[in-house]
């Protein structure tokens, strides 16, 4: 029986791999559900925040916050890149990095320098050569705002001191569990909401000073957007892993059934050969 034993052991080892991928698939599915809940829970805050800041950008305020003013010349730009800490999630991170690189290369063509701030170990490894100024990895499945504030602040300070003139956020958008869309959005300067623009001149009443309120609001605004990005990225990671592991399990199943066919054929051939040898031997006697 040629290679029968080898084929059997191969079937067994693929079976073990399949068990692992199946388990990972189920873990990712349950983690995805929780991540999705978190994403949905924090979305209203981010949406309302965007609305309020949109109003701010449209109004004629006495105090112009630096984040609402667009600088004419751009010498250096900043990127905040969200990624996962672990791999085995299909092309999720690779697609995101491609998108980020496209945008970075475009700035470099215009002789603009780039500063990068990364969240997640994968981005940290991928962008090591491009000049990372701040990073934060291993935040777990439920990222907390408090863990991210320090890292974000590096970029915000750089903007306020004029070292960078634009700040972008690169993250995956969770469309549904099968589709994740990498996207690059401009964080600062703030883009005015064109939807419900109010025509006449108006300004807010402030309590207390305008500077104090707007500063507090702007800081919360950036934090909420980056936090939303991080939470969404976790949901994307889990969804991508679930899909990747499902196709790995399916492939393992297919390989096992192919190998079984080969094994059975080999066994049949061996039996046939043995019988014909016995018959030939009997005939010779």
């Amino acid at each position, binding site marked *: 029986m040629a290679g029968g034993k080898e084929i059997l052991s191969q079937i067994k080892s693929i079976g073990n791999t399949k068990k692992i991928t199946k388990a990972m698939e189920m873990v990712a599915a349950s983690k995805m559900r929780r991540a999705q809940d978190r994403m949905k829970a*924090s979305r*209203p*805050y981010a949406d*309302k925040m965007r609305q309020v800041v949109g109003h701010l950008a449209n109004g004629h305020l006495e105090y112009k916050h630096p984040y609402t003013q667009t600088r004419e010349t751009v010498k250096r730009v900043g990127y905040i890149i969200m990624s996962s800490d672990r791999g085995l999630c299909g092309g999720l991170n690779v697609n995101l990095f491609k998108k980020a690189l496209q945008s970075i290369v475009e700035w470099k063509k215009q002789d603009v320098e780039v500063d990068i701030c990364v969240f997640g170990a994968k981005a940290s490894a991928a962008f090591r050569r491009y000049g990372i100024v701040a990073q934060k990895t291993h935040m777990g499945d439920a990222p907390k705002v408090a863990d991210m504030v320090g890292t974000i602040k590096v970029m915000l300070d750089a903007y306020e001191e004029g070292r960078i003139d634009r700040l972008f956020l690169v993250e995956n958008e969770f469309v549904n569990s099968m589709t994740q869309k990498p996207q690059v959005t401009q964080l600062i300067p703030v883009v005015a909401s064109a939807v419900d623009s109010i025509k006449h001149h108006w*300004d807010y009443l402030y*309590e207390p000073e305008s500077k104090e*309120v707007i500063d507090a609001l702007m800081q919360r605004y950036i934090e909420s957007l980056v936090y939303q990005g991080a939470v969404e990225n976790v949901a994307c990671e889990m969804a991508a892993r679930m899909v990747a592991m499902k196709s790995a399990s399916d492939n393992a199943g297919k390989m096992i059934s192919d190998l079984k066919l080969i094994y059975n054929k080999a066994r049949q051939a061996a039996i046939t050969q043995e019988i014909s040898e016995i018959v030939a031997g009997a005939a010779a006697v």
Partner: protein
Amino acid sequence: MAMTFHLDVVTAEQALFSGTVEEVIAPGIMGDLGIMPRHSQLISKLRAGELQYRTTEGAMASLFVSGGVLEIQPHVVTVLADTGMRAEDLDEAAAREAMKQAQDALQGKDPEDLDYEAIQSELEAAKAQIEMLHRIGKLRGH
């Protein structure tokens, strides 16, 4: 029909309230703010305290907010709270515990490495929760 406007109360973790109201009383940092329809645009920081609103049914309802930002547009009021709770989720024992912890932290540690502001705001939030519970308790006749 009475004049109404839209109120949204959201925290970083959840949306607490979204609906049509006739009146809002918010804990502004410089004193309570009574807001009626067609209020002029205003933006204010909030302190920890009780946010009350009158729904179209005429009943007063209240929420606890621990600080944040309030924005008023003539027909929309948005409360961006740091954290918040519905009145019925408030827990006096937990609030007292939080207050005690904050007080201990203020006394125990070396003042150098103390995050004074954070502990102070925690303490105020706990105090405001207890105060609010007492007010509600009185209304219900406990």
